[in-house]
């Protein structure tokens, strides 16, 4: 199938306010006279429909054909039958023989599609095969009212939940109990890092805090653990083990434990060959928004190369926003925030209608900046309703056919990169910075610095469960890799280099779409710029 034809059809459909299922577009392109077919379809489509579906196309083509085309129309009338049957068949086989599922389907679709052309892939757009589950969405659950107590309970919740993962590993004692222990005793403590400072002699003093108080732990500069001190952020949870000094006022650290992801962690995978596109930072409304790249991406999604892409995850910054930085209006292509979302929605419509979309807000979006950020409000949801995306809070975990993806916009990455030495975290390897967050089992540990915190009754930023995939954006750099088998992936962006980025020498990775195979967690990157 010629890509241009599909693209043209899609843009024609969007211009008329319709979103289209990929399969529907494929059918249309395959039609003898796609333009006529399109007109026909649009006439027949029910008034309340926003998405042009396969059945609409089929119905329309059927009538067209009935109108007297000489083309062999037997395959055209058949699909209405086989599609469900194949799907049903495969869904039955899912449990029994998942590995065979994809080939079966590929086989099936090609056999059907062959008559109309090589690319009219029959795809398993069967909703029954899909599963998508959201956890940790706090939209509409923001109960904090900004009181002192709210802050205290957030941090206590953090210590309880992450500390729970450490308490089994060390023989921990509360800070006040350690203060009472005699000099020379062995002690261990689980707590939040309260303070990190270097002593005059170059050692490191780390103050741990738990619900009873604080205790200082000294990491000697010549100990093996000293290297880990560089990685520490305030307010992360960790455990320390060591020996009390003679006057008991301080303990010498022998070992340090992080909540971490177990080395042996085995991620879940999907039972069939299905893919998800993990993108972020679209920045519609910016003068630097790369519309052409986005359109190329959307068009590509309509091709059979992308036939297995059934999910799309958007990790924040749909639009450029307003008032994000001073004098931003001078650099906006669309100054009105609502028009930005409308434009974004138009761009989203170009994405095949049968792709499931999940999105979280980012720091440019019109929601509160403090994390966790609830999903968009009703007004903005209404604007973006055409494609019916799932809009959830930042962060949230979405489980796609068994594969859990922790979506987080990634503001804390700036802080991790700033605080940690360059070899441990840098903008060039954003996924390495993500490894540290995985290790700390918290998406934004440090309080009081770059990241903003809105106090809620529990700490939504904790990684209670280990995700199979950790997806972030924000830094506009593409990077992915595995940390203890967890796939960490930072999407690039759809915004070309801004003046600001130029001034600080950041060269963004713009116009890339990382595609993850949910059955293998392999990543392929598609380039559209």
């Amino acid at each position: 199938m010629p890509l241009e034809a599909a693209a043209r059809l899609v843009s024609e459909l969007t211009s008329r306010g319709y979103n289209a299922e990929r399969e529907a577009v494929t059918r249309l392109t395959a039609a003898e006279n796609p333009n006529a077919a399109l007109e026909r379809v649009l006439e027949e489509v029910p008034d309340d429909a926003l998405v042009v579906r396969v059945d609409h196309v089929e119905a329309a083509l059927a009538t067209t054909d009935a109108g007297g085309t000489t083309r062999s129309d037997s395959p055209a009338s058949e699909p209405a039958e086989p599609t469900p049957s194949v799907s049903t068949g495969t869904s039955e086989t899912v449990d029994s023989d998942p590995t065979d599922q994809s080939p079966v389907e590929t086989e099936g679709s090609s056999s059907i599609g062959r008559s109309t052309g090589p690319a009219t892939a029959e795809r398993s757009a069967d909703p029954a095969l899909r599963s998508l589950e959201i956890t940790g969405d706090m939209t509409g659950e923001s109960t904090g009212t900004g009181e002192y107590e709210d802050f205290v309970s957030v941090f206590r919740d953090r210590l309880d939940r992450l500390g729970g993962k450490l308490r089994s590993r060390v023989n921990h004692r509360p800070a006040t109990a350690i203060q009472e222990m005699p000099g020379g005793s062995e002690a261990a403590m689980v707590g939040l890092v309260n303070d990190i400072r270097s002593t005059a002699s170059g050692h490191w003093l780390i103050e741990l805090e738990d619900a009873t108080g604080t205790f200082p732990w000294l990491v000697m500069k010549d100990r093996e653990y000293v290297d880990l001190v560089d990685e520490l952020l305030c307010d992360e949870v960790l455990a320390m083990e060591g020996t009390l000094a003679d006057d008991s006022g301080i303990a010498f650290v022998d070992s340090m434990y992080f909540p971490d992801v177990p080395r042996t962690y085995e991620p879940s995978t999907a039972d069939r060959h299905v893919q998800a596109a993990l993108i972020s930072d679209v920045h519609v409304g910016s003068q630097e928004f790369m519309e052409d790249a986005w359109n190329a991406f959307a068009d590509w999604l309509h091709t059979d190369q992308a036939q297995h892409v059934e999910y799309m995850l958007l990790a924040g910054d749909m639009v450029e926003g307003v008032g994000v930085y001073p004098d931003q209006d001078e650099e906006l292509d669309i100054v009105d925030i609502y028009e930005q979302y409308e434009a974004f929605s138009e761009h989203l419509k170009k994405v095949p209608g049968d792709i499931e979309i999940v999105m979280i807000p980012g720091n440019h979006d019109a929601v509160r900046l403090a994390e966790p950020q609830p999903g968009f409000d009703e007004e903005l949801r209404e604007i973006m309703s055409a494609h019916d995306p799932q809009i959830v809070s930042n962060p949230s975990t979405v489980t796609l056919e068994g594969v859990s993806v922790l979506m987080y916009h990634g503001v804390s990455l700036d802080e991790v990169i700033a605080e940690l030495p360059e070899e441990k975290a840098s903008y060039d390897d954003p996924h390495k910075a993500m490894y540290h967050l995985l290790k700390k089992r918290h998406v934004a540990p440090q309080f009081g610095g770059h990241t903003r915190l809105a106090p809620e009754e529990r700490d939504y930023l904790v990684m209670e469960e280990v995700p199979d995939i950790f997806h972030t954006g924000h830094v506009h750099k593409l990077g992915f890799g595995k940390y203890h088998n967890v796939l960490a992936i930072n999407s690039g962006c759809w915004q070309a280099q801004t003046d600001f980025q130029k001034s600080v020498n950041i060269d963004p990775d713009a116009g890339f779409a990382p595609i993850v195979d949910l059955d293998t967690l392999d990543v392929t990157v598609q380039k559209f710029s």
Partner: protein
Amino acid sequence: MRAEDERYFERLESQLENAFDVAERAKQRGGDPKPEVEIPTARDMADRVENILGIDGVAERVRELEGQMSREEAALELAEDFAEGRVGDYESKAGKVEGAVRTAVALLTEGVVAAPIEGIDKVEILQNDDGSEFVNVYYAGPIRSAGGTAQALSVLVADYTRALVGIDGYNARDEEIERYAEEISLYDKETGLQYTPKDKETKFIAKHMPIMLDGEATGDEEVSGFRDLERVDTNSARGGMCLVLAEGIALKAPKIQRYTRNLDEIDWPWLQDLIDGTYYDDAADADDEGSDADVDADDEGDGDEEDAADDGDDAADDEPEGPPRVEESTKFLRDLIAGRPVFSHPCAEGGFRLRYGRARNHGFATAGVHPAAMHLVDDFLATGTQIKTERPGKAAGVVPVDSIEGPTVKLANGDVRRIDDPADALEIRNGVEKILDLGEYLVNYGEFVENNHPLAPAAYTYEWWVQDLAAAGADVQALEDDPRIDLEFPDPEEALEWATAYDAPLHPEYTYLWHDLSVDAFCTLSEAVAAGRVEDDTLVLDYADPVRDALETIVIEHRQRESESRIEVDDWRPFVRTVGCEPRQTVADGAALEPEEQEPTIELERTWTVDDLSERARTWGHETEGDNAIEAVNEVAPFQVRERAPTRIGNRMGRPEKSERRDLSPPVHTLFPIGEAGGAQRNVADAAKHAETMSDTPGVVELQIGRQRCEACGTETFKNRCPDCNERTTPDYRCPDCDQRLEPDDAGRVECDRCEREGTCVETREIDVHEEYRDALESVGERENAFEILKGVKGLSSQNKVPEPIEKGILRAKHDVSAFKDGTVRYDMTDLPVTSVRASELDVDVGQLQALGYEEDIHGEPLTHEDQLVELKVQDIVLSDGAAEHMLQTADFIDDLLEQYYGLEPFYEFEDRQDLVGELVFGMAPHTSAATVGRVIGFTSAAVGYAHPYFHAAKRRNCDGDEDCVMLLLDGLLNFSKSFLPDQRGGKMDAPLVMSSRIDPSEIDDEAHNMDVVSQYPREFYLATREQADPEDVDVEIAEANLGTDLEYTGFEHTHDTTNIAMGPDLSAYKTLGSMMDKMDAQLELSRKLVAVDETDVAERVIEYHFLPDLIGNLRAFSRQETRCLDCGEKFRRMPLTGDCRECGGRVNLTVHKGSVNKYMQTAIQVAEEYDCRDYTKQRLEVLERSLESIFENDKNKQSGIEDFM
């Protein structure tokens, strides 16, 4: 110096000596830290330098070198003296270098600012890696006050002295070089530098610097790389060092080079590379080229500016089509805040019109505004209010000048009137519908010189016209002498006659703002005039919107009567002639028969048609073709008409004026520590009764205090006199380790040789505050009901923690005055200049002035009545009413202190404020360390301190809104002690370490030398402004011309008088209005009235620069805030997991609450709505509002309306 000047200074000095004697006697008796007066007198700069440094022999040497060479050369000469031991008593090489460097900085800052003592911490000798020695100079933050040139020269002097005493150069290690680069950018990010060298430039400088630049940490932010260096003590940015390297060496390289060339001992060949920028591997790098250009531009700034101006002229010659205009500049509108109104947008019609001249209360960064305008802008402007202005400088202090034209307003009844009388302004203020024009705005020539700003086209004013008239051949002298003629405010007939008879331009009084009218509107207007009629010597025009608008635009007085469909203009003849119409008397038939009903109907005839206008006149314009009718006017009028107000100056309110007592917060009566025992009020009486527990003795408080020892009887005490034998005590220094008693060395350092530790006399001991308090009350013979409350301090911050005798505090409390950190009583006032005064406005009589040595008025006539102007003597100052009141209280306190504490005769014995006249005070500015002696000459109701510009310049202030303080002479002499000064960086700033008894005009801030001192600007000047000439190219005499001559203290003439230096409101509305909301409402209301102001823009800016940053900042602060214990004040970076304070178990709470975050939210939304702000702004507010809701409201328990409960 003239004999009378000599007499004046001698008189001041003898008065000073008298007071000094009294103070010396008192000090010998009292329990002050020192038994003598601690402020040494300096007669000149050399004295000040010596006193501020405390190095003997410097003054003498400075005087020798002065006159022979520049100050910079003298500094280098002195460096040789230090090196060879001729000056200063230093054993060590480091000491010699230190002495030389400090002296250089002191010399270059005229011994006024604190930089030489506070900005240079120490000089030490360290070792290079090859074992050779090098010099390390430790700079501190206050080096900032020295300025770039002095900073740079200090480095040169250090290097020169080093070479002379035989120390090697510094070889920076690589990591140190890298550290400099990282640190400079860190400091720039954190604090900001005027000039930030590129990393390469920094590294180049660091690599070649022959001495090490080091310093104290000034910020909390630490460098990330190059930490823990062996030879660098801190990981934070060293602010002083950064300033010296960036704003000193990098920025002033060409200036230093001038001196290195002449010195054989040292060699800075790399400076040339630095200046040329040839230190790069890739010299072609565009950015780098740019930075070099910056460096060059600084030195050759004048030349460049000239070139630019020339270019401008050339360009103007090439295309003469268009009137000369200045460029708009919106800089002054930046950071507009709520409650401080904009008076005029940049170059906006209806705004202040630039008039050149200097009023007697003007010059030195001030702006003359008509007092009627001050009232009409709803009193937001008062004498001394600071305005941020479009040009020529950035800011100016407002002074009232009523000899310029006042504002023109349109009243609700349709009258358009020019208001030249402040009383009228007050009367009609409520009926003002629109302020069509703010009137004239007086700026003196010197301002343009000082700011190096090309002259802006001058308004056509009387001063210029009269010279035009003379140039046209009129006998101006004869006209001036004619008692029937008012040359400045003539009748319309006279004005017309002169214009036609002498062929001179039309008198400015009848010249309207034709240049603001478009050619089309002008044609319409002239048609309307031709169709008009004259009734009762009043021009009557048919009412029509275009006619009304035209008349409002040209700002002519008239009456709009919409209901009667007519517009009336009174002084119509010049106006009618200007629009090219001729009055023609039609002899009505019946007129001659009925003489009573004399109604000579005058008809008007237009003498031209639109087609008569030349192409040039039709298209004449500045922004668009044909937007300026002046050329058309000149073609149709029978005389020449000049542009009345070609330059408008935009401005907005900056800071309000100030005249307030300086109280510490909370106020302090006595510098006696009482710890926490006095409660939040620091009440000594409470502390005297305080007991922690039932078992404690009330009034016994544990305090950190200096230990003193009586040499005579060995008693240990904290007092300066032995309680047993009344002998003076000395600080009792001990080693903190071995408790060995120590004596300070010559340099005043106390160190234990055995333990190598610094000794101290501070100890924690229990003091019976109750006993001290009772004893003090008894000793001064006061009872507790003599005052409301006596406030002490929590603790002492001075090095030796010497407390002040409580007695002084009791007497301060009795007279309701409070002490500053150095023990003095101060009063702050905004500085304003004045060069001539009249007795009547100062609330003094002629006799009082005569008694002060004022014998003649400014014209040389004998002084006989109150309204004569006399030239102000340089050290005489005018106190505000508040200051006078406060001085009287202080004088009473001093008298009681002398009598009841020191046991001497009272000194002042004032009955009322007239007694203050002739008394001496100290003037003292922040960031400086030298006080200047002044003499009270009178009082003003304006909330400012008027004084001679030289007096302000001696304190290193100008008058653009700066403020400083006055102290009563004897208060300073008796109560100031260096021992009270905080032992921290900057502690010695704002303290009178030395006083100047007389002002030498050559030794003051040279900004004052640029003030013009003439009574008239020449006609050539006005013509040159039309060319936008460089101010230096115009011949107007400035004060500089008289420096060093007999005339240096006199001849400060002015071009404009003002009736009273305190006209207009006494206080700005900004200070009289209550809440921020009231102020903002008034600000927006005013913006609606002013034609020159775009109210939507004001609202946008208030939201953009005040509300949004506040909201965003507070919201950000909220979500990353620290917390504080309500009980002990301990701060926590994060909320403690215990919930309670880890220190005291007390209640911990947030430091940023919901209330402080969203306090402006609703107001901002309302303003955005009401003033029709952009959607962008409104949406930003919407997004923020939702963020606030999301954070502060429970989704499951949304705030419900009252109806839910009904």
